């Protein structure tokens, strides 16, 4: 059938059953719109949670328990323990961490981003094996040496990349400071830290000064302080007369995430504590989000089923009402397949229009949600700019789903149309 002929017949159908077309389009738009909106919000929230609690499926952190019940000896996270970990099956790499076991302070009196800064800060430092920060920070740069970097000399420091977000989103706008468009703007910034010194607790012993400079940023860096090379932490602890043999924690990387539960069990059996706080929080939040999204999506699918039934029932009624017209078409030369094709194309167009409107409504709803977030909840730190993430593939999938549902809806009516006897219909039997 030629396109102009199809257009002509579709215009006639629309003229005959405008209310059916309207209700079909509305039903499809509601189903597709609500489904995509809930999916978009679910994906946006999941992305946000993953951003806040980045969980590497292959890594988990082991800590020595602070105290144990019913055991004579404390489990210590020393090199022997690390060797035992490394010997376990499926363990790929270990990343050791050691806190600098004394408080430190810094007084910054320098020019940063064209502004003169005078301030004092309490600093906590954690030594971390350099490989944990690859590829954000080169392992060649992150070493326990006084390095000359952009005319500064000192030990390299890695800061948490969330600090940049908090600074850009909240600190800088509130204090009239320039925004950091690029992490590189802070690289090379140097500062001195005096250990064994605290603004709150006073001096705990002989002070030790150390020069540092910012070498880079990583989401795996210590959020509440500075991350320094593991060897630097050991050296500083030794110089301060503190424990430089036992690690604060060890990040275990396994060959396959499927082995994580079994390894956690083994390590707990060995008397170590696996820090699953963030893992569990991320997992629970993710599950809660997807359970809610799933329930709402099911509701949308139910709306879709109702929309399909509406199309089926409406089309069936329409075809019965227009039976004589279709019989006339058959009498002047239409094949049953041509009539069925016309009905199916009509349903597809209704689904496309309804689906398109649904996508537009979902995008509009997502935009309104983002506007609401910014205007009402704008001051919450680390709040994402976009809480609605709708991939193009999702839209295409929903549109294809709507078209499939519409085709299913008209399958029965179009079959009946094909089997219709024009002689009986035209004779009014």
């Amino acid at each position, binding site marked *: *059938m030629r396109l102009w*002929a199809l257009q*002509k017949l579709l215009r006639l159908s629309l003229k005959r059953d405008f209310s059916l077309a309207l209700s079909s389009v509305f039903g499809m738009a509601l189903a597709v719109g609500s489904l995509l909106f809930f999916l978009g919000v679910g994906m946006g929230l999941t992305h946000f949670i993953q951003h806040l609690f980045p969980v590497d499926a292959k890594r988990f952190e082991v800590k020595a328990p602070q105290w144990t019940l019913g055991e004579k000896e404390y489990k210590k996270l020393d090199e022997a323990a690390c060797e035992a970990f490394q010997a376990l099956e499926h363990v790929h790499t270990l990343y050791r961490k050691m806190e600098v076991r004394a408080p430190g302070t810094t007084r910054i009196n320098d020019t940063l981003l064209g502004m003169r800064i005078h301030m004092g800060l309490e600093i906590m430092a954690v030594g971390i094996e350099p490989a944990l920060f690859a590829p954000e920070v080169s392992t060649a740069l992150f070493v326990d040496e006084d390095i000359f970097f952009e005319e500064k000399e000192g030990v390299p420091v890695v800061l948490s990349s969330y600090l940049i977000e908090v600074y850009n989103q909240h600190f800088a706008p509130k204090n009239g400071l320039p925004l950091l468009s690029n992490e590189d703007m802070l690289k090379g910034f140097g500062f001195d830290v005096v250990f064994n010194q605290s603004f709150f607790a006073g001096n705990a012993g002989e002070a030790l000064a150390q020069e540092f400079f910012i070498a880079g940023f990583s989401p795996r860096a210590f959020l509440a302080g500075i991350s320094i090379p593991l060897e630097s932490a050991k050296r500083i602890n030794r110089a301060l007369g503190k424990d430089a043999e036992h690690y604060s924690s060890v990040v275990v990387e396994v060959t396959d995430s499927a082995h994580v539960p079994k390894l956690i069990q083994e390590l707990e059996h060995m008397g170590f504590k696996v820090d699953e706080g963030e893992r569990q929080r991320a997992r629970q939040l993710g599950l809660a989000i997807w359970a809610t999204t799933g329930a709402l999506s099911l509701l949308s699918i139910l709306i879709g089923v109702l929309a399909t039934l509406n199309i089926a029932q409406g089309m069936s009624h329409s075809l019965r009402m227009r039976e004589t*017209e279709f*019989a006339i*078409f058959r*009498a002047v030369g239409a*094949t049953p397949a*041509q009539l069925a094709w016309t009905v199916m194309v009509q349903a597809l167009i209704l689904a496309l229009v309804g689906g398109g409107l649904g996508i537009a409504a979902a995008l509009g709803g997502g935009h309104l949600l983002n506007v609401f977030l910014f205007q009402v909840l704008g001051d919450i730190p680390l709040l994402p700019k976009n809480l609605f993430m709708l991939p193009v593939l999702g839209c295409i999938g929903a549109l294809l789903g709507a078209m499939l549902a519409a085709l299913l809806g008209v399958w029965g009516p179009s079959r009946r149309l094909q089997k219709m006897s024009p002689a009986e219909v*035209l004779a009014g039997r």
Partner: protein
Amino acid sequence: MIEVRNLSKVFEKAHAHAVHALSIPSLEVASGEFVALSGKSGSGKTTLLNILGALDLCYEGEVRIGEEVLSKLSSRELAHYRATTVASVFQSFHLIQGWSALENVALPALFSKAPPPDIIPRALQMLQAVGLGDKAKSTPAQLSGGERQRMAIARALFAGARLMLCDEPTGNLDAQTTQSIVDLLVRLNAEGLTLVVATHEPLLLKAAQRHLNLEQGRLQ
């Protein structure tokens, strides 16, 4: 043109005896002939026209139209036959409401695999041929009964059919309009169109070259 052999049609009714609607051992209509079919209501006139027009396919026997045996044609071939060889005109016109006369007349072009390149001029020409040249934009609701029947005849002529089957074409018309439709059919027949007309109208019975009477599905 038409050859019917041992044609039989039975209506099966639930909880009732089967009704023998047609039983015609033999019928021939020559090309260019004008045949009138008469008979009481329920005598099988419409059933015979529906079978000849390939609108009813449930029958026994052989119906040959030209070279084609209808029962041997596929669904697509039957549609092609209805579009090009035969044209049906009904008592209640069966026009598409809301469409103009021009659109109604050109309706067969919508389903044709190879519609004529000059659809609009051809439809206009058909309307002029039935005396509706000035009513091309009128819808069926704006036309009289006679004009609607002319429009239906123009539609039947559009695809260039050689055989026209008319079921009570003047059944809903007044005497004056009836005369004009009879004149039109006689003219079309004179131009070479084969006509089989089911009718009670004396004017049509008189105008026909042959008169067949059906009684309880049998030719008398």
